[in-house]
């Protein structure tokens, strides 16, 4: 019992020490949080020039108006279970993503909408960055992703990539 109490006390000390070090090291980030940053997203636009985040409403407008080519950055398995109708699956999971020829063949000035599971998840940002490097000029990351699309009850399509 005494032993358990001693160990628990040590665990608390380890935890307290971690909090102190974490707060000291991340003080600049904590100051930015206090200034109101990161309330909506952890995405730093400066890191991804030419890429911007869009809301569900904007994504829906672009999709319903047929004004954008939609890319789903999730793994094929998840894409098969449901995706934005007409979207092309281009999984950005893992490294060494290659953009297929049909996507590379699209006009560079055209609008691309990229999404993944939800939040401005890393795979959609990774894909957006790659597309930007490939020369695409208008890449929009739908930050709510599949989770938000589905929760809003918007149309969905099942099955593998139709392309």
């Amino acid at each position: 019992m005494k032993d358990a109490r001693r160990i628990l006390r040590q665990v608390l000390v380890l935890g307290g020490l971690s909090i102190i070090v974490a707060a000291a090291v991340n003080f600049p980030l904590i100051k930015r949080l206090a200034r109101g940053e990161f309330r909506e997203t952890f995405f730093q636009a400066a890191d991804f020039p030419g890429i911007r985040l869009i809301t569900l409403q904007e994504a829906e407008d672009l999709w319903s108006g047929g004004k954008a080519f939609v890319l789903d950055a999730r793994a094929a398995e998840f894409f098969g279970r449901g995706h934005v109708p007409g979207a092309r699956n281009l999984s950005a999971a893992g490294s060494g993503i290659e953009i297929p020829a049909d996507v590379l063949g699209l006009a560079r000035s055209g609008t691309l909408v990229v999404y993944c599971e939800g939040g401005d998840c890393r795979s959609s940002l990774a894909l957006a960055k790659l597309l930007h490097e490939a020369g695409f000029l208008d890449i929009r990351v739908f930050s709510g992703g599949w989770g938000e699309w589905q929760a809003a009850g918007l149309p969905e399509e099942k099955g593998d990539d139709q392309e």
Partner: protein
Amino acid sequence: MIRNRTVLLVFRLVLGGLFVYAGVVKALEPLDFAQDIRNYRLVGQMLSFVAAVVLPWLEIVAGLALAAGIWTRAAALTISGLLVFFILLTLATMARGIDVDCGCFGSLSRKSGWGVIIEDLVMLYLGLCLLLDKKKGQSQLKSRRNPCIVPRIF
């Protein structure tokens, strides 16, 4: 015969080293890690930030303590607790059918799934061996049969 001191030393170095590594890669990119946590869709923006700032340092501090043999059982308890939490989190994510990076090793993370759970279970085994090594206050150099070779702790 495998001596406890050797096996437990290896366990400590491997598990402590893995946690220090995992903590450092996450501590270098706290905002990326915050986004990984947010993507699990369990906590809000603010809690994701707090967890992303503190969790990597908890891993580093506990990992260093374990590897250095300081407060070994407390460090093993901390790490085991974290691993149990990670396993439950991964199971919950799989049950909800969410496609999410585990966030385990920063940019080297894979998708949450059985592979992640098996890795965590192996690490949990090492952690529990160290936690259940009850000869407190005694030198790790004291040789005795290793209780973890036969996994009777399960």
